[in-house]
């Protein structure tokens, strides 16, 4: 493989990482509050508002039911309006964010709903406001589960970035399609696949490690 191609692989890897990182960040900023809302606005919960809950739930479901490649193409006008172009890594971040935000919302919702309702009752008995319950009880207690959920979302995003490659995004997916497939360069294809696998492994391992750091539920030998 020529030095040129290696440079290309390196650049594509960085582009993928960039798209994944920014989309995760934006997706969490949008999906996080949505997830908290979904988890706490059911009837009888902290911010009980069943109608709003149902509406947001429907929107989230709708967004999640569109196959990513269709979504990416369908929102090209929107992407162009936001970024000024529909091509390149920055443009790819728009559909990636829109795809991952509802996914993150559902993951965070389910993590929060796993928190023992007894803890909410205990916090209420202390005179906590709903906002305090979210900040001091629900989010910290759900954190290991949220981290694992975000890990899952990041792994999915790595897959999505490969798809944006087909519609003018950049990154490893683009490289694999243009060189590996269209120019029939199996070594490039193989390199793309291996880098992707390694990337997913690292993300998964790191996610599990961070989640375990947060998790105080398993008794450990803490010396003495």
């Amino acid at each position, binding site marked *: 493989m020529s030095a040129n191609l290696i440079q290309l692989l390196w650049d594509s890897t960085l582009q993928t990482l960039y798209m994944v990182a920014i989309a995760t960040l934006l997706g969490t900023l949008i999906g996080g509050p949505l997830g908290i809302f979904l988890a706490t606005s059911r009837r009888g919960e902290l911010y009980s508002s069943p109608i709003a809950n149902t509406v947001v739930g429907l929107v989230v479901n709708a967004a999640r039911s569109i196959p990513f490649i269709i979504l990416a193409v369908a929102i090209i006008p929107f992407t162009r309006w936001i970024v000024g172009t529909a091509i390149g890594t920055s443009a790819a971040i728009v559909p990636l964010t829109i795809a991952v935000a509802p996914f993150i919302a559902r993951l965070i919702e389910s993590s929060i709903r796993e928190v*023992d309702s*007894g*803890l909410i*009752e*205990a*916090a*209420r*008995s*202390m*005179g*906590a*406001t709903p906002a*305090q319950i979210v900040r*001091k*009880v629900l989010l*910290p*207690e759900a*954190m*290991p589960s949220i981290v694992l959920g975000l890990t899952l979302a990041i792994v999915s995003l790595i897959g999505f970035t490969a798809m944006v490659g087909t519609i003018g995004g950049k990154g490893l997916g683009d490289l694999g399609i243009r060189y590996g497939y269209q120019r029939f360069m199996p070594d490039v294809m193989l390199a793309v696949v291996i880098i992707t696998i390694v990337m997913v492994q690292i993300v998964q391992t790191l996610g599990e490690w961070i989640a375990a750091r*947060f*998790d*105080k*539920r*398993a*008794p*450990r030998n*803490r010396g003495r």
Partner: protein
Amino acid sequence: MAEAAISFQGVTRRYPQKKGSGDVIALQDIWLDVPQGAVTGIIGRSGAGKSTLLRMVNGLERPSSGKVIVNGHNVGEADPAALRAIRREVGMIFQHFNLLAMRSVYDNIALPLEIAGVDSARIKPRVNELIELVGLTQQAARYPAELSGGQKQRVGIARALATNPRVLLSDEATSALDPDTTRQVLALLKDINRELGLTILLITHEMAVVRDIGTHVAVIENGQIVESGETYDVFSRPQHATTRSFLTGVTGVAVPHFIADRMTAEPRSADDETVVQITFVGPHATDPMLARLTAELGVSVNIMAGAIEEIGDKPFGSLIVGLPASRTAEARAFLEQHGLFTEVLGHVS
């Protein structure tokens, strides 16, 4: 009796059901005063409504009608901000502890102070003081998963006391603990009650808990209080069948099975034995009354079961005896005259 710390005034709680079926009535017209500085036990079976009643005190449940007055505030009508202020004066401990798994012992105890907006400089000495009070100095940095059940409940108690409440609510706090640990936790609650003058309202399905620390007791069944008063009075003279069934096994005695199986409500012949439960209370609890019964009336007494124990530091004796049916009336009159309580349970031939 001192002024009531908590007063339930005609409290009813209905849960509306789906169309067609009537409301479920969890509590019906509850009138109960919980005296200041006392340890009051509410005892009832699961589903009797005791949990709903307890949660009315800190507004986790609201009455459908009636009033709940806590430290002079009407809890049912408090707006959210007022309710939060009331809750800081009412600590609560739970059967399953409800500790935050991701917070250390120290941070769990600090939580109510953080919630109350106490500044961090003042949180530290208070938390350390509480950790010492419940004897967990060694465990301050540990997490709940690393603690035993008894230690977890100690954390729960320290946490409940953090904001200096005047009332402590206990929701089956010892039901998940083994008997030894239960005794230790109850002893701690008793100490706190004495030293801090804290009013404790606890719910339980175990009469032994009430016997060990309750100065007052209320028995609840099907959403109604069937009997209430000072523990000693209720235990020594239970009026209601539910109370009696709770007391069986707690105040020592039950009719042995081989007798119970043969017992009939009415005597079948004059030679029958009458089974009588004799309760010795107060100053008479230790008098040798049966010996006197035999010596002075010549009535032979057949002891079937018995026990003497302490309730609220006062001796309490209970005996089940067989008396000749022909002499029962006379013997009972003699015993009642000397301040004992008797009750005919049945007859055996």
